[in-house]
Each structure stands twice: as C-alpha cells, then as structure tokens.
C-alpha cells in the first residue's frame, strides 16, 4: 500500500468501516510511514475533540406550539385530494428558481414553437410545378425565378416543335406522335400557370407567345393517332406562320442579356 492509497482509506479507518484485510494493510503502512502515521493521529485527535461537542437539547413542552405552526402551514397548501401525487410532489431541490431559468425556458418554448410550425405547416410547394395559382392567391415570385420558369417552358416547347418540324411526314411513326402528344398535353397544362405568373406590362409580349404556343400545342395534341399527311402539315404550317421558334429564340436571348446569371434553359433544367 502506498501513501495515496493509505490516505484514501483513512476516513473509513477512522470510523471503523474498513474490512479486515484492508485494516491489516493499512496498519502495516502506518507502522512503516511516519508521515501517514502522524496524519492519521492528528485526524484521530481532531475527531475526539469534535466528540466533546455538547448535544443540543429540545424543549419537549414546545411540541404543541410547533405542531400548531406546522398544521397551519399544511392547511394553507392543502387540497382535498390527499393521495394526489401531483399535490404531494415537493421540490427536493431549491424552491427558488433563478431568474436566468425563465429566459432559458422562454427560448426553449420559442424553439419548440418554430419546430412545430415547420413540421406541421411546411412551406407550400412551387406553384408552377404543383398547383394552379389564382391571381388572388399567388404571391409574386422574384422576377428571376419567373423568367427562369418561363424560359424553361419555352425551351421545352421549342424542342418539341423542332422535333415536329424536323421529322419528315413519311417518317412519322405512331410512337413518335404519341410521345409528342403526351409532351404537348403537359405543356398545355402548364401554359395557364405560366401565363398567370406573367403580370408585368413588359411581360405581355412573352405572354402572347405562350398563348400562340398553346394553340399549336392544342393542334398537335388533338391529331388522331394515325396521322394523315394533312394533320401534321397543319401543325407545321402553324409553327412557320407564327414564327414560333424564332420568337422563342428572341425571348431567350433577351432574357439572358438582361440577367446574365440566368442559366440558359434546356429541357434538362425544367
């Protein structure tokens, strides 16, 4: 046993709470270590001195008075439900709550409120992609995002129409037409959302372009599955007559020149 271990056992030894083996080892160390022996003796003497302290006396006759005071306090806080655990709970810890605890509690409440709000009332999804927005409901999106969405719409429309224009009538297969009709129907659905977001006076030209596109797309969507030469030609003539593709190109260039950070729309970034 070393001096550190001896010190750790000193209290248990002083109060006879050490086991037999420990006691033997402890005593053996004291016999060989003058420092620990002196320390032990010194503490022993101190405890003997403390034992001379007089016990306090309690006046038994005062019990009646004391009990009345206790009873008065109990009656103040008493309720009818003696067995209620809520009533019987006490603060075994300090009854005074420090002032800073109120601040912490308030911040916690705010954090919980924000968490609940975000969890149960999430942000509404993007209007153009999910639901049609009415003028009274929709909040004007920042200009750049509107322009980006519109350009994306135009880009997809352009790609579709280029596909139509570049396919020879003789090469038109049912599968190709069905695919193009599916895309055109999607674009028709989106057209109304896109037009709704174009509210500024300088956006009316592009709004008209979207309307013109809508007509072309409707014609394409309504072609019968087994196309005749005439049906596709009507669509192609419409695209040429209205210079749809040219107009789309112009709008794209204008948008990019006004906001260079807007990414050039392709069918991939819709």
């Amino acid at each position, binding site marked *: 046993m070393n001096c550190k271990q001896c*010190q*750790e056992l*000193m*209290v*248990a030894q*002083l*109060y006879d*709470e050490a086991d037999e083996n420990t006691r033997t080892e402890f005593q053996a160390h004291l016999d060989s270590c003058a420092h620990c022996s002196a320390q032990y003796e*010194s*503490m*022993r*003497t*101190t*405890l*003997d*001195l*403390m*034992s*001379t*302290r*007089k*016990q*306090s*006396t*309690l006046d038994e006759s005062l*019990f009646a008075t*004391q*009990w009345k*005071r*206790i*009873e008065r*306090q*109990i009656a103040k*806080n008493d309720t009818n439900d*003696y*067995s*209620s*655990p809520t*009533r*019987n*709970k*006490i603060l*075994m*810890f*300090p*009854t*005074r709550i420090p002032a800073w605890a109120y601040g912490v509690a308030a911040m916690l409440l705010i954090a919980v409120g924000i968490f609940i709000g975000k969890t149960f009332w999430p942000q509404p999804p993007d209007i153009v992609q999910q639901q049609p927005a009415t003028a009274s409901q929709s909040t004007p999106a920042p200009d750049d995002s509107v322009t980006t969405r519109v350009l994306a719409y135009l880009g997809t429309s352009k790609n579709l129409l280029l596909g139509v224009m570049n396919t020879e009538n003789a090469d038109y297969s049912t599968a190709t037409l069905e695919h193009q009709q599916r895309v055109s129907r999607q674009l028709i659905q989106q057209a109304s959302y896109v037009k709704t977001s174009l509210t500024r006076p300088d956006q009316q030209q592009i709004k008209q372009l979207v309307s013109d596109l809508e007509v072309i797309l409707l014609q394409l969507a309504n072609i019968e599955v087994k196309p005749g030469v005439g049906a596709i030609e009507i669509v192609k003539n419409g695209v040429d007559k209205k210079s749809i593709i040219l107009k789309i190109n112009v709008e794209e260039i204008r948008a990019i020149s006004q906001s260079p950070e807007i990414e050039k729309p392709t069918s991939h970034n819709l």
Partner: protein
Amino acid sequence: MPDEQTLIRDAQLGDREAFRRLVECARVNVYRLAYDLTSNQHDAEDLSQEVFIKAYRALGTFRGDAKWSSWLYRITVNTFYDFARSGMKKTIYYSDNQEHNSEENEILKQRDSISPDASAEAAIIQEHIEEALNRLSPRERSVFVLRHYHDCSLKQIAGMLEISDGTVKTLLFRAIQKLQQALEFYRNDFVVKRI
C-alpha cells in the same frame, strides 16, 4: 401505539393525527440534525418546521424503499442547503456566543465536581468547535455531522444525499482536515483522553 409503517400509510391516506404522531416521534432527531447543521437554536427550529411541512407535502412520494428517518434526514439536509443559499448563511456563520455560553453554563452548573475555571475552558472549547464547524461548506458539514454525530454509515450517507461513496469520503476527509486546521491550538495544548 401503531407502528411506524402503519402511521405512514395512514398519513398518506390523509390521517392528520397519524402524521402528527410521526412528527412527534421524529422531531428530536430532526431538530438535532438541524442544530448540528446550523449551530443556532432558532434556525434549527425553523429548519425542522420546514422539514415536516415538506415531508407532509411529499408523503405521496415516500415508497418505503428507504427508512423513514433517512428520508427525513435527506429532506433536512436539502432544506439546509436551500436555507444556506437563500441567506441563512449569516446566521450559520455567526456564532451566537451568549446562547452557547448560557446553555453551556446551565449544564455545567449541575456538575458539582467541575470548577469554574474548567467550565469556562469547556465553554470556550465548545465555542471554537462551533466556529470550526462553521468553516465547513454546507456539503462538507452535512456529511460530517451525519457521520460523526448521527452515526450514519458512509454508504447510508451516500444513499441519502444521492452521491457516490467516493464523494462522501472525499467530503469527509476535507471536512476533517479543515477542522484539524481550525482546532490546531487545542490539539497541541489540550490533551483529549481517548477511550
């Protein structure tokens, strides 16, 4: 007289008389512990009164896994900590000389064999013992008085105060060292006969 367990059960069911009996049985020990913690009669009375009020409110939480007396002791110590934090410190660290001297003289006068000089010395020693106790922190003091004056084992103290055995030993060791320093004068000049 019903046993303690019956009284506790009845008190938990709302029997005020049962609780009164429990208080009557426990008040001496609770008061002694309160006095050992505060060194002041008035504070000890206030403290023990508060202990019983808290015990009444908490009756529903007492499940009998600890002894009733240990449970009361725990409330006493915790209430003492509250008092110490709230400002009873001034009272704790003030040695009420007049009170101690009058109590001491009252007891000593009954002993015919004690000379006036010896009684004066004894009174002074008592005063210095109280002052030495007042140097301890609330935690050190509570651990020391529980072990030294109320014969609670180190394990019992650990359970009562919900601290580890190691912490009890450390607090007790520190307390004895502080008392040793405070009573250095007496250890050298006064021989204490060890039984």
